[in-house]
């Protein structure tokens, strides 16, 4: 069922068993799991079925820390959420990402990788990915053109990525949800506050507000906030009727530990012995799987570094490669979103490149683009701005910060790669100027992957996290969070696969 919430009368009350706030990757994956089950699900989406400027501008925020992408351009506020313009990069987090690492402050998940594996496998189907197998050998055996570089894999080895078409959740799953008799989708239903009982231990309802001031309340037994990391933070901090510091924020943890992936060109390489690079090459919209390079777990432990990968990208003909933020201004992202609204188009695909040995001999140079986790940092945080949006909710005040460990890790990765490539006769590695210095300096062009992570992190101890291992908000018996905000550490992998896997795991938990 579907209802445009703007048609509801002021003061209307909607009731269900499970209320999911937000219909992006997490919210839709979660709702799909309830189709045909006994629970009555209310799915609230703030936007409609396509982008609307007035709604999108609700995501505008104040950026006070390190320069970042305009917040209203980074995330999409309509049915399908940011899957409306995502690129489709998928990989599971590595087992080491879940561990408590003595050299990474605040690291460690309350769950292990093997507990997520069954959900990763299920998430593959939703994201239209290939087999849930990320062993490099598996992919080399499937295509004779794929060849390994002669690496010493005790030090540096491959990590595989798979690529979703990319699946647009809004297009692909709209009909299934609208047709479901036990799922009621409300669009244009922006939640502005979470109402609890007097002790703030139980959520009784969420309040939906329209631009004209009318309000609707949604009651349910269980609630899931799946509005994206920053919007979940806003909603928790803005829900101050019972607790002045905000819901789930009794230990001042909501909004802290915000993380991005440091996704940016940081160097280059030239290969000295041309070989097939089909295993490592990537053409957007064409490549189904490819390898990036990472330091082995043992090497990360020995060097006390964060987890990261390095991708081989086609080097520009001249000049230097722009950071990911610089290379993709908001107007380009909007063009990509419009052109690929339902599926990838030929116009948006990269031209198909040749990665055979002969072609590599002609162009042996690649840009090296890193994908690195940042260390969890309580000072990297999202709070509320003094400015309010058109619905009266305080905007996000965004203060992204990095640490010395982040810089040292990237430098260690590239110097290790340089030494290994030289030692093994593979090639030579060039570091960007700012990476040559062993200091904490980052250039203004530092960029990320548009990945909002942490800020409502998972931890067994309420003093160190917002949700428990089941994604339930500490101290609130029936409120759960979904999305990248619950990640305690970011790993190097793009987050969508893990976000969907965690949503499926949460669905199982809520149904038991």
């Amino acid at each position, binding site marked *: 069922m579907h209802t445009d919430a703007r048609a509801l009368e002021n003061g209307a009350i909607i009731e269900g068993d499970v209320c999911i706030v937000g219909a992006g990757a997490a919210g839709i994956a979660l709702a799909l799991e309830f189709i045909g089950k006994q629970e009555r699900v209310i799915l609230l989406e703030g936007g409609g079925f396509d982008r609307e400027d007035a709604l999108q501008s609700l995501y505008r925020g104040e950026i006070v820390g390190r320069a970042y992408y305009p917040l209203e351009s980074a995330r999409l506020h309509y049915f399908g959420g940011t899957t409306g313009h995502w690129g489709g990069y998928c990989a599971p987090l590595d087992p080491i990402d879940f561990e408590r690492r003595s050299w990474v402050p605040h690291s460690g998940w309350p769950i292990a990788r093997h507990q997520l594996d069954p959900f990763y496998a299920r998430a593959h189907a939703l994201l239209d990915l290939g087999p849930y197998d990320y062993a490099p050998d598996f992919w080399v055996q499937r295509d004779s053109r794929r060849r390994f570089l002669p690496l010493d894999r005790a030090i540096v080895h491959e990590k595989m990525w798979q690529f979703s078409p990319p699946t647009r959740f809004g297009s692909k799953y709209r009909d299934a949800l609208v047709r479901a008799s036990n799922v009621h989708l409300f669009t244009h239903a922006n939640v502005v506050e979470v109402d609890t009982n007097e002790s703030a231990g139980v959520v009784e309802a969420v309040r939906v507000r329209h631009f004209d001031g009318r309000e609707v309340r949604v009651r349910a037994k269980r609630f899931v906030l799946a509005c994206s990391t920053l919007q979940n933070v806003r909603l928790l901090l803005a829900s101050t009727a019972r607790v002045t510091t905000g819901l789930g924020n009794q230990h001042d943890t909501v909004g802290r530990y915000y993380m991005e992936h440091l996704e940016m060109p940081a160097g280059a390489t030239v*290969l*000295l012995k041309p070989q097939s690079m089909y295993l490592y090459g990537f053409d957007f919209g064409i490549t189904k799987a490819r390898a990036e390079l990472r330091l082995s777990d043992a090497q990360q432990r020995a060097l006390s570094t964060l987890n990261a990968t390095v991708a081989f990208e086609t080097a520009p003909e001249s000049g230097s490669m722009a950071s990911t933020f610089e290379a993709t201004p908001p107007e380009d992202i909007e063009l990509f979103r419009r052109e690929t609204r339902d599926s990838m188009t030929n116009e948006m695909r990269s031209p198909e490149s040749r990665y055979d040995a002969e072609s590599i001999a002609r162009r042996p140079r690649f840009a090296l683009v890193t994908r690195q986790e940042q260390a969890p940092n309580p000072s990297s945080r999202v709070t509320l701005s003094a400015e309010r949006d058109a619905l009266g909710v305080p905007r996000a005040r965004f203060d992204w910060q990095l640490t010395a460990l982040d810089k040292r890790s990237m430098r260690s990765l590239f110097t290790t790669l340089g030494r290994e490539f*030289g*030692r093994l006769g593979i090639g030579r590695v060039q570091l960007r*100027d700012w990476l*040559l210095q062993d200091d904490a300096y980052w250039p203004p062009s530092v960029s990320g992957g548009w990945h909002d992570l942490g800020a409502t992190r998972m931890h067994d101890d309420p003093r160190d996290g917002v949700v428990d291992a089941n994604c339930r908000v500490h101290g609130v018996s029936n409120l759960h969070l979904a999305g990248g905000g619950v990640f305690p550490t970011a790993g190097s992998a793009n987050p969508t696969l893990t976000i969907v896997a965690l949503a499926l795991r949460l669905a199982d938990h809520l149904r038991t």
Partner: protein
Amino acid sequence: MKRRRFVSGVGTGLAMIALGVGCDAEGRPVPVGAPVLAGALGDAMVRQLGRAYLAQTPAEQTVDALQRSVARAMRRAQPHWWSPTPSLEQLIVSDFEKGHTIFVDGWMLSVNEARQCALATLATT
């Protein structure tokens, strides 16, 4: 004389330097060879790296000084006095294994291949 012997092998491109053989201070031949980077980065880039190395290494500004440094490194790389002198290619691998590297224009190079680039630069100027 040493410079003349080295330069005598240099033709129009750096690849021709493969024919060149320098001598160390004791008259022993030092096979400086063609920079392995020339094939991948091109002659102009190798010369640029050579110039950058010269700019950041005041103690090695001449062919003689560079050749002496390479020869010294080769002797040190010999496990025993009776062992054969390693080739420059072997010396470069050894440099990377031992962390005997240097950043030149951001490139992580073996110190001795950086000297090789500098020699190539001096040979063509």
